[in-house]
């Protein structure tokens, strides 16, 4: 139990001193970030310990009746845990320098560490409800971090060109808006997911992913029920992993500090969605279940993933902001992970392994690229893609790291991602029951993906406009991304040396002719992207404006919402008027009427009294008494 407590609580506890101190004495506060990073480091060590020394199995502790806080160490979680621990720690180190002069360090470090702890909770949880604690933690921490620069006063923290408008859409977003968009989208998905979890508890009587008898459950609730349940459940991963049409928040999440984007987009938050899908698929074992509901859901996820991936790739291709380009590319990768994992319905467990390895590869590469982007923004004071060869010359290490990360991630043979992508090609190729479309889409996406990675390199270091550099320091930042990128070599070694039981298949797949053809295509796309990195056409504009999908977030849904709100407001006014003006007014006038009778004249009273008397008696006699 102590192991888990240390794992989850050390980051949080280590960040409390700075969170508290920051409100009272900032001079002390400025010295405390190191402590937070130490907390992250302890967590990282624990994840390593779990990977190396803890036997696979479950660890559960009582929580609510029938619900335990349960952790599981299995193939997915032990790697994912280390990945999270490592990336969070490295980004933490990087953040020591990057966030040095920030005005809200207490907030930053608390939420950064909470974020990490929440992700670790999601990674290791076997129980869906305890997983949800981590899940909600991710949501709230992402809100806190994306809106970190709450003052909205720094142009560098915005997304989009300030004051640009297209029709009725404002095409720029402040950090506070970014935070709001993130949390509002996520809540939209979390609540159906929460219902699904509760329903699973109601029907299966158990919430431990590895112990639920999924087959029995599915039999019990029928195909339609399964489809509803799973879709409700997947609303959580869809929104968190920014699949269409919930992708907008991810783009404006770039209003947060770059360290946050790096963490958000590699091993945590967005990865949590896909990871969760892999995790439940791992135990549902959909390839063993013949049920129309299951089939429908997996097919849907497959195509949703692929289409989201294509969308993300196209947006990234035309994007003009460093971080937004990377954000869109993340969305693209997430789509691929979903698609690959969904293919498990037809392929089996191997598809999940492929998706998982792609997640790992992507995590390191994307974290590297974000850290690079952060460093570039820091040095150029510009969040748009810019920089010519002078940048490459003055920031050699950065340049090299970027080359390595892009090349490795693009899937150029024989580098890391190539092997994973090859396996993915093979998976998609084997989807005979679904048709050729997945494979075709995958190939297109791979090519576009490669092109925009080259574009990122080219526009930042070679062909971008000239910028003035403000070089200073940067030691810790460089260490950060160098460490990060070196992990890609480690992965390559793991794959080529066959250290893991599953990777042999990857290598085999890499030697297939078709895979190699795709590899060549990707390389060519990379070259084209490098040579001609801009897309300044009308189509390019539409792509760069993300197909105007923001209309959904910023216009359509709010307009509908406000229509309801206004109606409700009128309703309240009406009720208020009726109960607090009309009715008391009525009483008052009746009251005045009653009092008018008191004229003070006796003869008048006698008339009235006798009149009333007669009237009552007449009524009585008429009524027949």
């Amino acid at each position: 139990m102590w192991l888990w407590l240390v794992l989850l609580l050390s980051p949080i506890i280590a960040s409390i001193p700075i969170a508290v101190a920051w409100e009272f004495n900032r001079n002390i506060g400025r010295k405390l970030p190191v402590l937070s990073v130490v907390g992250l480091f302890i967590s990282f060590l624990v994840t390593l310990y779990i990977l190396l020394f803890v036997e696979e199995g479950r660890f559960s502790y009582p929580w609510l009746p029938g619900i335990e806080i349960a952790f599981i160490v299995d193939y997915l979680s032990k790697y994912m845990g280390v990945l999270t621990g490592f990336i969070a720690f490295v980004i933490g180190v990087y953040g020591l320098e990057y966030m040095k002069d920030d005005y809200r360090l207490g907030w930053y470090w608390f939420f950064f560490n909470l974020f990490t702890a929440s992700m670790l909770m999601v990674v290791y949880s076997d129980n869906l409800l305890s997983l949800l604690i981590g899940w909600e933690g991710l949501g709230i921490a992402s809100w806190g971090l994306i809106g970190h620069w709450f003052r909205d006063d720094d142009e560098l923290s915005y997304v989009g060109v300030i004051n640009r408008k297209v029709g009725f859409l404002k095409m720029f977003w402040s950090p506070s808006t970014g935070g709001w968009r993130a949390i509002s989208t996520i809540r939209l998905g979390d609540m159906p997911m929460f219902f699904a979890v509760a329903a699973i508890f109601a029907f299966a009587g158990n919430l431990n992913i590895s112990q639920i008898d999924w087959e029995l459950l599915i039999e019990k609730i029928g195909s339609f029920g399964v489809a509803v349940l799973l879709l409700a459940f997947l609303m959580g991963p869809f929104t968190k992993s920014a699949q269409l049409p919930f992708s907008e928040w991810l783009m404006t999440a770039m209003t947060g500090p770059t360290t946050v984007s790096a963490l958000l987009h590699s091993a945590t938050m967005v990865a949590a969605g896909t990871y969760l899908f892999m995790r439940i698929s791992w135990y549902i074992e959909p390839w063993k279940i013949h049920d129309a509901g299951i089939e429908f859901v997996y097919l849907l996820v497959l195509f949703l993933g692929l289409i989201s991936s294509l969308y993300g790739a196209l947006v990234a291709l035309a994007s003009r902001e460093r971080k937004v380009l990377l954000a869109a590319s993340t969305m693209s990768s997430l789509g691929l992970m979903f698609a690959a994992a969904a293919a498990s319905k037809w392929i089996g467990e191997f598809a999940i392994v492929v998706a998982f390895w792609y997640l790992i590869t992507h995590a390191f590469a994307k974290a590297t690229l974000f850290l690079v982007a952060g460093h570039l923004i820091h040095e150029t004071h510009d969040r748009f893609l810019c920089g010519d060869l002078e940048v490459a010359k003055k920031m050699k290490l950065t340049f090299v790291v970027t080359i390595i990360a892009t090349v490795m991630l693009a899937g150029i043979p024989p580098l890391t991602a190539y092997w994973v992508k090859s396996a993915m090609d093979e998976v998609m190729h084997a989807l005979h029951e679904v048709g050729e479309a997945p494979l075709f889409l995958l190939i297109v996406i791979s090519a576009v993906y490669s092109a925009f990675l080259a574009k990122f390199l080219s526009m930042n270091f070679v062909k971008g406009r000239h910028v003035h550099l403000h070089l200073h320091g940067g030691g810790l930042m460089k260490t950060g991304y160098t460490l990060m990128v070196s992990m890609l070599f480690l992965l390559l070694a793991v794959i080529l040396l066959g250290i893991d039981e599953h990777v042999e298949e990857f290598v085999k797949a890499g030697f297939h002719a078709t895979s190699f053809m795709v590899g060549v295509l990707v390389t060519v796309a990379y070259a084209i992207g490098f040579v001609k990195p801009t897309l300044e056409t009308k189509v390019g504009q539409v792509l760069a404006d993300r197909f105007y999908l923001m209309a959904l977030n910023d216009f359509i849904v709010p307009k509908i919402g406000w229509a309801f709100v206004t109606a409700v407001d009128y309703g309240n006014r009406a009720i208020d008027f009726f109960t607090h003006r009309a009715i008391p007014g009525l009483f008052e006038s009746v009251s005045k009427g009653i009092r008018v009778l008191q004229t003070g004249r006796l003869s008048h009273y006698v008339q009235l009294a006798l009149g009333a008397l007669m009237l009552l008696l007449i009524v009585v006699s008429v009524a027949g008494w």
Partner: protein
Amino acid sequence: MISALLAPLIAVIVAPFFKPREAAVLSAVAFFAAFVGLLIDAFTGAYYRVDLVQAAEPVGNIYMFGDTVSHAFGFTIAFVSAMVALYSYPYMAHRFEEMGLGEDEFKKYWFLHNLYAASMLWLVYAGNLILLYVFLEISLVTSFLLIYMYGYGNRQWVALLYFVWTHIAGALALVGFLLIGFENKTLALDSIKTVSFLAWLLVFLGMIIKLPGFGAHIWLPWAHAEAPTPVSALLSPLTVGLAAYVLLRIYFIEPSFIIDHRIPIFAYGVLTSVYAGLAVFKQNDYKRLLAYSTVSQMGYILIAFTLGAAGILGVVIQYISHAFGKSILFMTAGAIIATFHGLRDLNKMSGMHEFVPTISNAALLGFMNLSGILTIGMIGEFYILKGLADTFGLPSAINSIAMATMLSVVIVFIISGLYSFYTMKRIYYGTPADYSKVLVHRLLDSPLYVIAILSILLLLPPFATWFIDALVKFLGVA
């Protein structure tokens, strides 16, 4: 630990004789002592009873008793009251100064505040419907007087409005109680065997006004917004929810009314919650906004009532989580009012985090309670959803009701989350408005964090384990 109930009585009697500051500490200590005792009782599921008097028919035996549900409500009330007592000191000092009243006014204030809080606490331990009604009305009068004397705006009008509405509520329930008395020849909770439809209906209608449900909800924003903030911080979190407690007690005796009319009540709860939740977006007064959110949260309780055993568990937990969240939030509103001289207009607030970061963070914790993030609210929502699945099943071709109920509850929960963070953004985020950073009185922010910490602790083991186990054992939820 029935003696825990006596501690507040001491505060009621003694506190007015102390200096304001000491009185605050004294009241807080008294209620906190009660809280600790009752929390332990809640964890252990203790049961006790004390007979007071035997009254003539239809009243019957009047006694106090405590079971797990009483303790759950009881420790919440005691805890929030303790924190509000601390908070009252700087806030009311500010308010009295603003109204041109002297420190002597604190004597009245402490008496009424403590009596108000204590009557709510005793209410949940009342073993006879008349005793319960007595405490209900004492809490009504004391809170009425506090609004009448120290409220804002057109305070006398608002106080009267509050009195009339809730008095109608109480009186309707009283007629219902009397019907129960007629049927059972007693109003002692342990001897009531049946509750006829008409009696249930009257109690239900009364409590709907108090809770409040859609339509009757219109009094609440007035009262809760114009009350002095410490009173709002008791009214909104604790008092209105007591209607749920009353319904709960009747439900334990005779659940058929709710079960037979499950769909209309459920729909009414959804309507209330969605309607009030939407209204939150339009409010420009911080306290009014919170008041509407209270109505929306009380909709949860109505919904949960219809959802069987798990739903009842949800009612109890929802009461607690809302109490914690809303007391924090009202106190943040009050802290801004006290610090920035009556500032409560949202249009004049922006980027307030810059000036009062501790208050902003506390508000976040409060809103997390309301939206069920990382606080006990999460368990509440979980059991409500579980009840939903238990009761209506999963949507299917022949079960369209399940689809409708699922969607409506999900929408209800989503709206709470949305208005929470929308409000956070409006008030605390964005370009800072034109104020200067000030020092917030320590008692205006630290009690809020204490509440938040308890709320988080109650989500996690071991507190959650002890507490929910005891509740489940008591309610017999499968």
